[in-house]
């Protein structure tokens, strides 16, 4: 199925922004592994899209990369440096003890609109650069406004999160991650909780980032978006990689595995039934 296992001991591939090797994730008191022997590389400036049915481990994969969940096996490397090594028996450990500075290199945007409700839009975006990176306030504000302009929300800089729509909040969450200049951005189903009309405005921002060469790992259920943005694709099921391809067009038109075919067909069916209306 996958030939990536061949370079297990070779460690991170050259030029990879993010390398995951033989990742194992298991919860306490559970026999089944949520992620089992997952390996892949994301070359710099490329976009990896992770698809798969619910409960396949997609979100957990992003969470382990972000350091929110301990891993029980394998390694995660950022730009060739190992940042996480699996420890058996670490199921009950909390978030990774990785440094604040290191965390700013991997950005993440969640499905729920997770802006800090006690801060304005600008306050949300400027918090981490000021507190963690100790950057100059005027410079940070200038960049924050520039980012807001890019996502079309310059006029909302002083708004409070509860005054904004879901789509606006997600665009601001993207700005909040971008201002730290992360090497890799992780998107965990960022449009799954949005009204359909708002999905577009958020996905357009993500497509703009891809064009600008931002390295990203994207978990999504929007198959047409996935097809448009992916440079590489992984399909997960039950914590295993079912199919892995550097040719997304081919994955979406003629997948190699029967399972991937089945999975993609479920979306075809949905679309067909909608088109009839």
């Amino acid at each position, binding site marked *: 199925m996958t030939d990536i296992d061949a370079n297990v001991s070779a460690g991170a591939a050259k030029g990879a922004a993010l390398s995951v090797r033989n990742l194992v994730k298991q919860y306490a008191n559970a026999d089944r592994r949520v992620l089992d022997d997952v390996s892949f590389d994301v070359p710099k400036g490329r976009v990896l899209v992770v698809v798969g049915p619910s409960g396949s481990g997609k979100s957990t994969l992003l969470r382990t990369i*972000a*350091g*929110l969940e301990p891993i029980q096996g394998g390694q995660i490397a950022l730009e060739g440096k190992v940042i996480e090594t699996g420890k058996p028996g670490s199921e009950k450990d909390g*978030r990774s003890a990785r440094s*604040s*500075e290191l*965390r*700013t290199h*991997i*950005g*993440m945007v*969640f499905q*729920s609109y*997770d802006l*800090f*409700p*006690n801060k304005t839009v600008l306050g949300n975006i400027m*918090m*981490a650069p000021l*507190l*963690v*990176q100790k950057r100059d306030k005027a410079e940070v504000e200038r960049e924050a406004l520039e980012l807001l302009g890019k996502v079309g929300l310059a006029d909302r800089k002083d708004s409070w999160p*509860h005054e904004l729509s879901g789509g606006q909040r997600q665009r601001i969450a993207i700005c*909040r*991650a971008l201002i*730290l200049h992360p090497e890799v951005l992780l998107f965990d189903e960022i449009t799954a909780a949005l009204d359909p009309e708002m999905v577009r405005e958020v996905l357009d921002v993500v497509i703009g980032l891809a064009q600008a060469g931002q390295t990203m790992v994207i978990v999504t259920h929007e198959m047409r978006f996935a097809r448009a943005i992916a440079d590489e694709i992984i399909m997960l099921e039950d914590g295993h990689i079912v199919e892995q391809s550097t040719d997304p067009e081919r994955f979406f038109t003629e997948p190699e595995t029967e399972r991937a075919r089945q999975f993609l067909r479920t979306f075809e069916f949905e679309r067909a039934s909608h088109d009839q209306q």
Partner: protein
Amino acid sequence: MQGAEILLLPGVMPRLLQGLWVTVWIAAVSVIVSVPVGLLVGWLMTLKNPVVRVLMRIYLDFIRIMPQLALLFLAYYGFARWFDWNLDATGACVLVFILWGGAELGDLVRGALQSIPEIQAESAYVLGLTGWQSFVHVILPQALRRLLPASVNLATRIVKTTSLAVLLGVVEVIKVGQQIIDANRFQYPDGTLWIYGVIFFMYFIVCWPLSIVARRLEKRWAND
């Protein structure tokens, strides 16, 4: 309207106001010191350390189960007898109300801290904030908002409970009232109602603004 003249006797109102000042002073000091104590207790209660948890549980339950009056007697007479620590009556009151307010507020703080969704701490973590920065800039400000209405109510309860200080001999507003009534029992047999009426009004004036503030805040933050 019989007996209302008692309020016009020289010294009656000034003495009642002095008594009110004692009440307000005990309550204010207790509430103000309860805030840091409560924050600390609440934070300790969210820790995973089992020893800390058990200690906090015992503290909270002890304070809650004991009647405040029993706590006052323990502090006033007990400390003197067991530790040779002679608190004056006002000191004993303040100490008990701080311990009580701290425990109640601590439980409120714990509830408020735990009601903040995990995703908030996770977002802060991913942005690189340290645990302390996340607590101070993200979790605590949100918890305080949820906490404020309930803690203002707690403050009014503390104000009212200061009336127990009479029983330790503190001359606060109720005690002053009793003294005035006793001294004028024969000239103004109907003065009792007037004096207590004024005291009622004084408590109301102190507590009412607090209730209004609590209601306002509850409304304003309800939809956040």
